[in-house]
């Protein structure tokens, strides 16, 4: 009796493992199917953007859309460059992006250094107040900044200095970047700083030789997010910049205004959108690690 029971259990066990294996394979198939279907949905707009940008208008309008262009129309890209004045917009965006990133990095580094390493009265209070401003929606600042830059005479000013300054200066200080870098600076052991002090190294030299190299990954994250920010900024330049100093997104939207009327030359429009998107993709592919690290700590787009 006891022997029989043992045999039964072993058989059962075998059956259970086979069932488990089948279940596991099936669930893996289900997982992959779900993920791949979702991935296709996520990536489809990019595919459609690129494919449409290479079609002729007549082909784009076919009642049964083609999944690949019959004849590749590179001319759409040339037209897009001309229609949206993309070269001028690229130039503006790069100038604003590079200058504001460099200045912003300098300010972020010295401010974060002061908060992380130097002692002064009211440090914690000041830092808490800075963090408090992060809760306020940006639109609230926009209203007064609009008045302020008008007082400065920067509003839609066609001069190159004012034209660029209005896009750069109001956004040089980012409390979030200061916070991010300060956290990073704090991780560097204080002993290093004291040792440097004993050796008679100045604060500034210590900052340049020790702290900056040690927090390079965070600085790279900040650089990318800031560059992406000027690449994607739309509202502020649209409100205050002179037409000659519009950034890439403004030109894109205003050159092809009637998105919903069905009249627009969509292949050319898609070519312009592709041109704008490609640099972002390249940055993403090569610097994914830094972007994801920065983003996972912020939730701020750009």
């Amino acid at each position, binding site marked *: 009796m006891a022997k029989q029971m043992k045999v039964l259990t072993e058989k059962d066990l075998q059956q259970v493992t086979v069932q488990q294996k089948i279940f596991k394979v099936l669930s893996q198939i289900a997982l992959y199917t779900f993920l791949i279907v979702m991935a296709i949905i996520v990536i489809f707009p990019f595919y459609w*953007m690129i494919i449409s940008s290479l079609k002729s208008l007549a082909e784009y309008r076919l009642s049964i859309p083609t999944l690949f262009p019959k004849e590749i129309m590179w001319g759409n890209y040339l037209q897009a460059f001309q229609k949206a004045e993309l070269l001028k917009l690229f130039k503006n965006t790069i100038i604003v992006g590079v200058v504001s990133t460099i200045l912003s990095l300098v300010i972020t580094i010295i401010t974060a250094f002061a908060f992380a390493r130097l*002692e002064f009265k009211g440090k914690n209070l000041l830092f808490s107040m800075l963090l408090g401003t992060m809760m306020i929606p940006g639109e609230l600042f926009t209203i007064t900044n609009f008045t302020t830059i008008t007082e400065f005479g920067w509003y839609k000013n066609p001069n190159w200095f004012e034209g660029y300054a209005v896009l750069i200066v109001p956004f040089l200080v980012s409390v979030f970047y200061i916070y991010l870098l300060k956290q990073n600076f704090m991780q560097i052991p204080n002993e290093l700083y004291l040792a440097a002090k004993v050796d008679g190294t100045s604060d500034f030299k210590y900052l340049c030789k020790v702290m900056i190299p040690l927090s390079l990954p965070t600085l790279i994250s900040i650089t990318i997010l800031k560059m992406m920010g000027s690449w994607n900024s739309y*509202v502020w330049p649209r409100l205050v910049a002179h037409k000659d100093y519009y950034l890439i997104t403004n030109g894109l939207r205003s050159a092809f205004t009637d998105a919903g009327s069905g009249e627009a030359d969509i292949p050319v429009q898609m070519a312009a959108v592709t041109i704008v998107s490609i640099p972002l993709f390249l940055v993403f592919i090569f610097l994914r690690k830094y972007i994801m690290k920065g983003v996972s700590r912020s939730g701020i787009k750009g």
Partner: protein
Amino acid sequence: MVDSKHQWKAWLYLLPAIILLLIFTVWPIFNTVRMAFTVYWDAEAPAGFDEDGMQLCDENGNPLWGKYQGYTISKDLGNKKLADDDPAKVKFEFGLDNFIHVLTYDGFWTIMKNTVILCVLTVPLSTFLALLIAVCLNAIKPLQRVLQTIFFLPYVTNSIAIGMVFAAMFNIVGVNTTDVAASTSVGIVNTVLMVFGLDPINWINQGSTYWANIAVMVIYIVWNALPFKILILLGGLQSVNKQYYDAAKIDSTPKWRVFTRITVPLLSPMIAYVVITGFIGGFKEYTSIVGIFGEKMQPPGAAVGVPVLQTMVGYIYDNLGNAEGVASAAALLLFVLIFAVTLVNLGVSKKKTHY
């Protein structure tokens, strides 16, 4: 160890940031509050009326002035005409007129309706989808990296540019063209619908319905919101202690129970975080609508007046430059709304968060 003579050095390091913050962050906070609560009285007949006291209208026939309880409030700063016997020429006074102007704006309920609908639809949908994708991603080994990269891709895009791609996908091509030779297509999304035997829908073109517009916006916003949410949730999943899952395995707990009883509770702080940021984003929706519908924030050919898809941020920008007081009041209301929703969310998540 640090003596007071070094203090000035610290302030020197802080100087550039402090100057810029005073001008572009601190001053705006005070000034916005100040402008929102100020009413401007003027002895001159304000510029919304002609000499005979007739109301002037803009090209669309909308009065340049709003009316409130017998007062005429201008679009400019909400100013009111002084009584004739008042000795002052101009007077600034504390008042709530700007707020009343916002609350009685014809489009205020449109704004609230759009905001609530978009938040209620997009936040749960995107959070649930992101959670599902993150859990699945966490459960696979091969292709994990590749799929993770693909799911993050929408984050590094320009929301205006990709909005134009979505508009093209939902567009009905060539309906208005006189060019008969060109074939007309109903757009790729409608083509897919027709493959499944459904009728094509007018999503965003002239004459499209409000709910079709909202559907497009929900799809676009969810698509846009997924990458950030997946990133946060996947990061959370990867830091979860494996012990809980091993214990569940020994007890042979069913998968669904593992998900609802272990995964979701352990992830609850991250879920709370993405829900809160989702709500904040929902209240500040603007560029994604501009990306698809353009700055008119409605399908082409819709009636003049309050845009069908108007939002609070859109309203603030509309008032910028001609009615800063009203824009300030709207921005303060937006801040209070976001703050309140965040507090409610935090309150709920404190009860539900298992930490």
